[in-house]
């Protein structure tokens, strides 16, 4: 089957271009750019809206196995399709953790049956994410794990992490760390400072992130492993990251959309939908991190989609669960960064699609000929008022509830098949 997208505003992160054009898709792959419509192709009039590579979302929590009442592969897949996310990179912090090839095979099968978008899986770095023994890295790699991470758990024993990194390097596996000093951040609900003190909430100093990052980077230097820091959210961490990169270490870093668009004061009167790990940061940090995404120092922008049911959020702030759903809101939230002039659309899709795909060795994230036709058509200017109960995720915990957003996904294709939106 052939598709011909006309009258599109093509957002190409690889060429860093944002220009009108057309795109031809054949057999699920991008076949031509700005060519005439081939005979028999289905014409799709993009109406001047943006056509970009689908988002590759690194670090999505799905509740299978263990917490299907919060999110299933089906619900996550539908939410992703509606949000322009064409590849979900799922986290292994499930119950039980994805730490054996058998569990990995189970989730891979379930995901393929249930989800309209692609789902790839990460595996735990240590058994049970307990930070003591490494998982069967080789078997897991063979079974399709794209990266290894204990997600929100820091491997606090440096010797265990050093060994896991050394072993991973020998297999060429990517290790994803959560940079945070576990002692300083223990029990923290917000970032320390005046706001934390006036709210009487336990806080963690931003330097705890740099301490965790510096330790991990030293171990990467020691072992030569491929490393990605899942969330770098503080200005103080950025020089360490820049130093590691210019020193030739194989290091990348990510940040969640929430840390780019919200700050610590948004917690307000104990609003638990604004509780995150790491916690939201002061405005100066947010601005520094946005700037780092623009410069490319921070490579990857992700949703850190974390579904939580109502009961785990309807608690006093300290006891409430952290995280927010974001598969459906990551694109409109990212448009805030575009509309305020901080990031161009190619820069945004470089961070949301091209870089994560590249880092994981996936062919997605590009508009190049031969790339998979994973595409999102969106109107960056379409305004709407977000009602959390309209979200497709099983969990509705979004901090953007009731907020004015700009940017609507009109349609999404995975491998040339439309998975969201109407015929055009």
């Amino acid at each position, binding site marked *: 089957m052939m598709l011909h997208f006309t009258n599109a505003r093509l957002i190409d992160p690889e060429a860093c271009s944002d220009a009108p054009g057309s795109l031809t898709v054949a057999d699920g792959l991008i076949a031509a750019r700005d060519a005439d419509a081939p005979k028999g192709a289905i014409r799709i009039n993009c109406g001047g809206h943006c056509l970009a590579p689908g988002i590759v979302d690194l670090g999505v929590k799905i509740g299978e196995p263990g917490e299907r009442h919060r999110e299933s592969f089906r619900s996550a897949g539908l939410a992703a399709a509606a949000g322009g996310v064409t590849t979900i990179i799922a986290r292994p912090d499930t119950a039980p953790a994805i730490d054996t090839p058998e569990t990995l095979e189970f989730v891979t099968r379930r995901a393929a049956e249930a989800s309209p978008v692609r789902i790839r899986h990460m595996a735990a770095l240590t058994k049970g994410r307990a930070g003591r023994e490494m998982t069967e890295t080789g078997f897991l790699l063979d079974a399709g794990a794209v990266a290894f991470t204990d997600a929100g758990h820091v491997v606090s024993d440096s010797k265990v992490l050093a060994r896991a990194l050394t072993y991973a390097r020998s297999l060429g596996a990517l290790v994803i760390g959560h940079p945070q000093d576990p002692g300083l951040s223990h029990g923290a609900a917000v970032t320390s400072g*005046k706001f934390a*003190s006036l709210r*009487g909430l336990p806080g963690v100093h931003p330097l705890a992130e740099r301490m965790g990052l510096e330790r991990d980077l030293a171990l990467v230097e020691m072992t030569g492993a491929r490393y990605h820091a899942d969330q770098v959210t503080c200005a103080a961490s950025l020089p360490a990251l820049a130093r590691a990169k210019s020193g030739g270490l194989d290091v990348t870093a990510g940040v969640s959309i929430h840390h780019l668009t919200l700050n610590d004061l948004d917690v307000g009167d104990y609003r638990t939908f604004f509780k995150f790990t790491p916690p939201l940061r002061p405005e100066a940090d947010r601005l520094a991190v946005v700037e780092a995404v623009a410069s490319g120092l921070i490579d990857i922008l992700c949703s850190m989609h974390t579904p939580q049911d109502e009961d785990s959020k309807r608690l*006093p*702030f300290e006891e409430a669960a952290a995280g927010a759903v974001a598969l459906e809101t990551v694109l409109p939230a990212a448009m805030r960064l575009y509309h305020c002039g901080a990031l161009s659309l190619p820069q945004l899709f470089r961070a949301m699609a091209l870089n994560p795909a590249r880092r994981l060795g996936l062919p997605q994230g590009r508009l190049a000929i031969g790339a998979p036709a994973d595409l999102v058509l969106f109107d960056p200017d379409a305004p709407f008022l977000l009602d959390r109960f309209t979200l497709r995720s099983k969990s509705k915990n979004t901090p953007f509830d009731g907020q004015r957003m700009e940017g609507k996904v009109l349609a999404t294709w995975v491998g040339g098949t439309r998975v969201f939106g109407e015929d055009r």
Partner: protein
Amino acid sequence: MTFRARHLLGIEHLAPEDIRTVLDLSERYVDLNRRTIKRTDVLAGMTQINMFFEASTRTQASFELAGKRLGADVMTMQVAQSSLKKGETLIDTALTLNAMQPDLLVVRHPSSGAVNLLASKVTCAVLNAGDGQHEHPTQALLDALTIRRAKGRIQRLTVAICGDIAHSRVARSNLLLLGKMENRIRLIAPATLMPSGVNDFGCEVFDDMAEGLKGCDVVMMLRLQKERMDGGFIPSEREYYHRYGLDAEKLAHARPDAIVMHPGPMNRGVEIDGTLADDINRSVIQDQVEMGVAVRMACMELLARNLKAERGRLAAGALA
């Protein structure tokens, strides 16, 4: 008219006029409380429920007495922490009680913000009797009344708040109130017991007690909250007492007519010398307890008035 609030969750949302309204009304109750017949019928027929999720003696007794003297039907519930798995049933408990149609809910809870959460789920007026390390508004109001009676005013004073500021909701509420009333505030504590971001508070910050107390009109001591401390914040109680315990010698740095306050319960010989605490010429600690009942009566009267007005408006709306 001032003090239009539905709930009293903290000093944060009060305006200086609201604070003055509470203090003025409290004065009337101080007089009433000194009479033999103390009862009024301001809250007659109304139901007050005190929910204490955290152990308390004086605050609980004070609220109970305040409600009874106003003529309310008062019930006090001690919700043992052991039976509540970390606040899990907080909302359920609140909804259950709310269904019994109370008019005033007085709540103390060990988690910051828990009372705000509860207030958002019930239809009655909620009075914060202390939530975690967040606020304890009636304590700040009774402290203000005590100061105003002792000093003749509640502005342009130099007030030192000393001790375990990091863990103290009393300190936070007092900081907010004294700041709103335009006083000069000094915070005196070892650096480990200072809250984070303290330099942005607009207060003067000291770690030396003698220096910090110089020229102060009011010295507020705080209890060392051993139960909230996980891990060493101070090397030992005796070193703490030596450097930060208030005794006559340290107090000599303050103004000769400076008053000494403490929210209680006191750790004698840890943050304050026992003899000084009992010195009726300097210590107003017993006055604070007395003012507590009056201030709580005033707060409950104001909240009840607002609640009645709101219900009246709703009823009028339903008829219209």
